[in-house]
């Protein structure tokens, strides 16, 4: 096994931690608290001021909470659920549960009560730690539908003053219980933590369920350390880097970053005040490490684009000019090309006038580890941030097997998802892959795949000759960089026999500031590719107003001839990059917005394709029967649970 010198250098003496007998996250917390005691570990803005928690304070909070849970009867091997926005208490809760040998499961805060019920029951959770009234209300509403939940703990008491329920306790009350428990058993916490093993299950991460019911993927302490060292080997990270914890720990990525890397590197983990204030907060703390989902980077880019549409002509000109210089210089450097002297001389000026203020405004000035987690983001979005001077990198992997590839080094191809990451020998053999005849990526190595909780059949299905079958269609370039095409089941053949990558097309279309969501159509019964578009009313609305185009509702705006023309122009731009046969030939602007509450999108805002195909069957048949317009009926669900039908005239547009 040859590990490149650069990777060894990136790791430095990090792996030594694991020579000190550290096997689990709580063991590492105790270890780091001894080393860094008073240094800031967690930070959270409260009442307008950033409040700091040192390693010792975090440990103290974790310890008392863990002992409180123990006193309440939570035993080794049991599961405790957590639901809320990213806040210190959520992280402490998780370390505490793991400290007494339990499994943690995090739920997305915008889950509905029935979605919660499924996960709570499936994971056998015995207690739940909630953020606030909103989450507690959902759990109380479920009542006997979640019979195993013995205790409901919450940390934000706003609106909770008059709640009385035998299962309800505040975070502080549980910690108080823990303190009493500690007086009787002073060294119990240390003993419980010491009993933890690297192969213990630390977290159950539920996969977002684009196909069928969510599956609970088991993550061991070892697998999280493995993931942390894969990143640390691929990219050097400074200790006490300012990390902004924004993506939910319900997604395995934040488990690897904020919760694991936070302890290993260690990072200063900062929590936004509210989801609405995150952009402001990123700027305030001078964030250095930032991970967003592709959608979030896309939306940041389109915020800039649409703000520039509002700006005056002089500013707009400067912005275009500065970005053009940035593009020339930064992208050439990224591709390893020489930059012509003229552009190099212009760059400091462009940086001073445009790029620096832009980065500063977005709070990205100090960010050196900018990352998009996932499989597909339009290269245009990457280029946008690179032009600005932010080295945005992609990380690709699965919940089951950890991280696979990463944009490493100073030159990489933005059309790819990066090169394979190194695995530290302590945590397993290097990653090996092969590509099946259908084009599917198969991977083995690292700490491996532990399995799905209570689904041994589904687990077995995922393993082929010792390889984990990812279900992703990829191909490798001659430079050993991976190109992600699509999910295997989502690569589509047309009736002409031509295969096209729907997600590829969709990601590029989504970069248009006027398009919020898009679903491409085309399968073995259909001769060409078409698209259903969800326009972005936030940008199309002002665009229409500026041109004095009157409209009443979303429905009305979406079917306006000028708007349909606008979207047509956007699709033509993308068609230019597509080979004959994969081009989008017809499209429809949807008369309503796609909504996760109607199960049209998952919580991570991915399309639920088969559901959409059923729901919009009438639209699809109109496209392929060559109709120019038709009377559509769409069932809608209102916020309060009532249902209705939206009836309207919908136009089919040709390209």
């Amino acid at each position: 096994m040859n590990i490149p010198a650069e990777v060894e250098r990136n790791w430095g003496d990090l792996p030594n931690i694991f020579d000190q007998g550290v096997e689990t996250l709580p063991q590492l917390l105790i270890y780091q608290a001894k080393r860094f005691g008073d240094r800031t570990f967690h930070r959270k803005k409260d009442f307008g001021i950033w409040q700091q928690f040192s390693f010792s304070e975090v440990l103290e909070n974790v310890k008392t909470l863990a002992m409180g849970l123990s006193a309440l009867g939570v035993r080794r091997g049991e599961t405790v659920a957590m639901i809320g926005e990213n806040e210190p208490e959520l992280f402490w809760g998780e370390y505490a549960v793991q400290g007494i040998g339990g499994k943690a499961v995090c739920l997305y805060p915008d889950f509905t009560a029935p979605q919660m019920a499924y996960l709570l029951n499936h994971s056998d959770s015995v207690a739940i730690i909630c953020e606030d009234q909103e989450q507690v209300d959902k759990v109380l509403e479920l009542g006997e539908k979640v019979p195993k939940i013995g205790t409901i703990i919450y940390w934000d008491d706003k609106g909770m003053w008059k709640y009385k329920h035998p299962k309800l306790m505040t975070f502080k009350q549980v910690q108080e219980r823990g303190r009493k428990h500690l007086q009787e058993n002073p060294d119990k916490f240390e003993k419980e933590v010491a009993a933890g093993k690297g192969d213990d299950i630390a977290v159950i991460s539920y996969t977002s369920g684009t196909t069928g019911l969510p599956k609970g993927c088991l993550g061991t302490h070892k697998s999280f350390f493995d993931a942390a060292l894969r990143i640390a080997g691929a990219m050097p990270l400074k200790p006490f880097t300012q990390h902004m914890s924004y993506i939910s720990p319900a997604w395995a990525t934040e488990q690897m970053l904020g919760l694991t890397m936070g302890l290993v590197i260690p990072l200063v983990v900062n929590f936004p005040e509210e989801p609405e204030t995150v952009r402001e907060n990123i700027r305030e703390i001078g964030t250095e490490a930032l991970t967003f989902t592709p959608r979030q980077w896309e939306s940041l880019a389109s915020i800039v684009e649409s703000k520039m549409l509002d700006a005056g002509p002089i500013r707009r000109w400067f912005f275009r000019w500065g970005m053009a210089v940035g593009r020339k210089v930064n992208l050439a450097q990224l591709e390893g090309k020489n930059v012509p002297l003229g552009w190099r001389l212009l760059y400091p000026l462009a940086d001073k006038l445009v790029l620096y203020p832009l980065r500063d405004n977005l709070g990205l000035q100090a960010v050196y580890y900018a990352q998009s987690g996932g499989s597909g983001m339009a290269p245009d979005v990457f280029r946008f941030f690179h032009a600005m001077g932010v080295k945005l990198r992609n990380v690709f992997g699965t919940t089951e097997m950890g991280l696979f590839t990463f944009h490493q080094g100073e030159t990489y191809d933005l059309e790819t998802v990066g090169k394979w990451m190194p695995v530290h020998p302590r945590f397993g053999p290097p990653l090996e892959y092969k590509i099946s005849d259908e084009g599917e990526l198969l991977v083995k190595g690292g700490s491996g795949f532990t399995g799905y909780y209570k689904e041994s059949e589904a687990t077995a299905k995922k393993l082929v000759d010792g390889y984990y079958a990812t279900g992703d269609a990829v191909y490798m370039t001659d430079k050993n960089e991976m190109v992600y095409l699509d999910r295997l089941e989502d690569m589509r053949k047309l009736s002409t026999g031509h295969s096209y990558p729907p997600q590829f097309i969709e990601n590029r279309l989504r970069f248009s500031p006027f398009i919020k969501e898009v679903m491409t159509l085309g399968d073995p019964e259909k001769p060409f590719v078409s698209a259903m578009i969800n326009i972005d009313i936030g940008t199309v609305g002002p665009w229409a107003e500026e041109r004095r185009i009157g409209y009443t509702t979303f429905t009305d705006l979406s079917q306006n001839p000028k708007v349909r023309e606008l979207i047509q122009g956007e699709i033509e731009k993308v068609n230019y990059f597509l080979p004959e046969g994969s081009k989008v030939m017809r499209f429809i602007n949807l008369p309503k917005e796609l909504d996760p509450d109607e199960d049209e999108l998952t919580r991570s805002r991915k399309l639920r394709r088969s559901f959409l195909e059923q729901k919009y069957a009438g639209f699809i048949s109109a496209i392929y029967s060559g109709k120019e317009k038709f009377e559509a009926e769409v069932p809608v669900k209102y916020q309060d649970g009532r249902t209705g039908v939206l009836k309207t005239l919908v136009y089919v547009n040709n390209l």
Partner: protein
Amino acid sequence: MKKREAMEEDKYLMRAVDIHLSFAGVMALQNVSIHVGQSEILAIIGPNGAGKTCLLNCLSGFYHPQKGEVFFRDQEITQLKPHKRAKLGIARTFQGVQLFPGLTVIDNLLTGRHMHMKTGAIQGFLYRPWTHREEMRERRKVEEIIDLLEIKHIRHRLVGSLSYGLRKRIDLGRALAMEPKVLLMDEPMAGMNLEEKEDIARFVIDIREAMDIPVVIVEHDMQVVMDIADRIYVLNWGHLIAEGNPEEIKGNPEVIKAYLGEERKI
């Protein structure tokens, strides 16, 4: 009846007894008596021009009735000026928004703290340690209100740039910044969409629970009021025509008549 009222008197935080108010011969209020309990959500409803706002203005001191008395605890305050009533702990919000559009949300809320501040302009200029401490303390209070009303994301924005619904919320925040003993709200839901109305309804309930003060709401919109009020007074043409809990009011024929007009027999 009289005896029971006398016994319960000390339970009431505010009382208006036998109010008569007229403008150049137009009788706006006639013979109206109401009381406000220690911690209740009290609604005053009625059709347009019934005299709801006039009654609220009598309570807050913007109008002085020609006849009748207003009490706060045991103190008679009928002729007291609004700013003096504010000092007693009577806060109100306005039907239209009355904020400083050129100041930020925080500064607008800090104006509500003005009467709790001891240092003046000169001390503010010199900025001695005690001025600093006071500023810290007042800012903290304001931050608590920002937290309660969920307006963290706009705390540094100019009020003039905010939507109507948010400005109403700031208006409410400024009234709360006074740390009032009673909160009077004049049509807090006028001109709002359903979601904004529900938000305000939730804040009213939160305020009552968090601060343990009564909230008096003058409102035109029956729907929301019926959901949150503990007790309701109904006014029509300057007369009090009904009093009771939402259930009683819903079934009251007088109220139905006032709102829907008289049922015609054919």
